[in-house]
């Protein structure tokens, strides 16, 4: 099981030779028993898997590995308090993209869930809240009709029930295979968030690695309070696109959580182990 998929999409050093050599070395060196040891893509250390707790942090450097919605719920919600909404919602093929059904089936198999977001209601530190948790393991958390609809319904439910909503974002952006309909989800969710906002209700976003494209340019950036996990990649344009536009090297730490906080777009960077406590305080102070 690949719990620790790579944190970043692409190398910025452009050092193809080094990568090739790495690959070669991997093939010739004796292989590590599958599943016992993993390599942290941040510090590059080999770590013993049993040392990784339910928080999914690198025991060596503290890097925050990507996690699934089930894992997120386990460390965030009070035990047994989460009940899921719309678990069976599945995409159709609005653009008639060839092979979309197959792509979806593979993503389901790989991630073990039906779509790139899990929504529902639960308790955090005793406080009721609506939650939406995105999953980068499902087609890179891309937002198509189902992601848009599930989150919109969750926000509308929160508005109707006068509850806060917390969204954990991770996404590569709009799902291109659904064409213009995927772009429209940005407006749909933002409009729902707008109504929740008008009612004076609390909206918190927790940006996790990576949050980019159409999700950044819609609900991720609309939280009353925007938290982020350390070193999460957060931005609008992809780094390759920016490099292709400006033809210069991107600065160190560009578009990371720390960069976003420095530029005024994130309220707080919170270590995953402290996240439940901080969310509890936020919910308490708005209850």
């Amino acid at each position, binding site marked *: 099981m690949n719990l620790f998929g790579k944190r970043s999409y692409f190398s910025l050093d452009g050092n193809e030779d080094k990568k090739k050599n790495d690959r070669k070395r991997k093939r010739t060196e004796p292989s590590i028993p599958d599943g016992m040891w993993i390599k942290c893509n941040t510090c590059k250390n080999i770590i013993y898997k049993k040392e990784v707790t339910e928080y999914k942090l690198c025991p060596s450097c503290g890097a925050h590995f990507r996690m699934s919605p089930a894992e997120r719920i386990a460390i965030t919600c009070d035990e047994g308090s989460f009940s899921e909404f719309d678990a069976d919602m599945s995409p159709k093929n609005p653009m008639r993209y060839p092979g979309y059904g197959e792509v979806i089936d593979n993503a389901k198999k790989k991630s073990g869930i039906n779509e790139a977001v899990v929504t529902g209601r639960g308790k955090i530190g005793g406080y009721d809240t609506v939650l939406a948790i995105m999953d980068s393991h499902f087609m890179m958390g891309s937002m198509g009709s189902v992601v848009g609809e599930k989150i919109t319904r969750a926000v509308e439910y929160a508005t109707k029930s006068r509850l806060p909503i917390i969204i954990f974002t991770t996404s590569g952006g709009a799902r291109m295979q659904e064409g213009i309909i995927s772009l429209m989800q940005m407006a749909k969710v933002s409009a729902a968030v*707008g109504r929740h906002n*008008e009612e004076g209700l609390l909206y918190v976003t927790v940006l996790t690695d990576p949050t980019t494209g159409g999700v*950044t*340019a819609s609900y991720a950036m609309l939280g009353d309070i925007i938290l982020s996990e350390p070193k999460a990649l957060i*931005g*609008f344009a992809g780094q390759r696109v920016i490099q292709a536009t400006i033809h210069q090297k991107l600065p160190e730490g560009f578009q990371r959580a720390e960069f976003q906080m420095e530029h005024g777009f994130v309220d707080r960077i919170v270590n995953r182990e402290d996240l439940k406590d901080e969310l509890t305080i936020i919910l308490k102070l708005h209850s």
Partner: protein
Amino acid sequence: MNDTMKKVGVARKIERPNTKEFIYEIFEDFLEFHGDRLYADDGAIVGGIANFEGMPVTVIGIQKGHDLDENVKCNFGQPNPEGYRKALRLMKQAEKFKRPVITFINTAGAYCGIGAEERGQGEAIARNLMEMSNLRTPIISIFIGEGGSGGALALAVADNVWMLENGMFSVLSPEGFASILWRDPSRVDEAAALMKMTAKDLMKDHVVDRIFYEPQEGLENNLNFTTEQIKTALRETLGGLKSMPTEELLEKRYTRFRQYGEFSE
């Protein structure tokens, strides 16, 4: 080159009339206002107040140039965050003075650069989407050329969305689609056909409500041919939208965007 790519070519033509030319042709008394009151004035977005047959309106649009000098000033029609924030400032001003807002869209997309990211391109677009969905005055958006992704949508959360015959609106460019999804830029024609990005396709998907025809000799040679149709449409629509109770207007706008999506459950 297939029909869709031909249309894309027309939409991108450097001679194609730009937002300011449409504004001068359709409205009177246009006064351009500058700046977002936060950081700068973005030449990629023009906006201000104008007179449409006696009705005060706010007009905002994405500006392209006809040559390199002009394009440097308007950043090739690719707005930075301060452009979207200027647009929002003018829309809030329109709301205060109960003026309808008319936006003109013509962009390959929001600018992708270091500064744009530093100043929160994502936040600027997101804010516009949310604020426009709840703006207490009518909004009409007209796609006059390219409509590239979130950078176009950020001015298009409207009560009516109209498009010129050779306009387009898509989640990304056909070139981007072919190279990202198929890793094969040569399949751009196939991508364009699949993406349903033309005015007619978008009308079927209920993204566009009305199409304006372009003259055979080319829009740049007879802009009046098309702006007369736009004027007629504005005449037919603005009064009705303006007299609609605000709550009903907002409910209809919400429902318009709420319906997008295809799924099974």
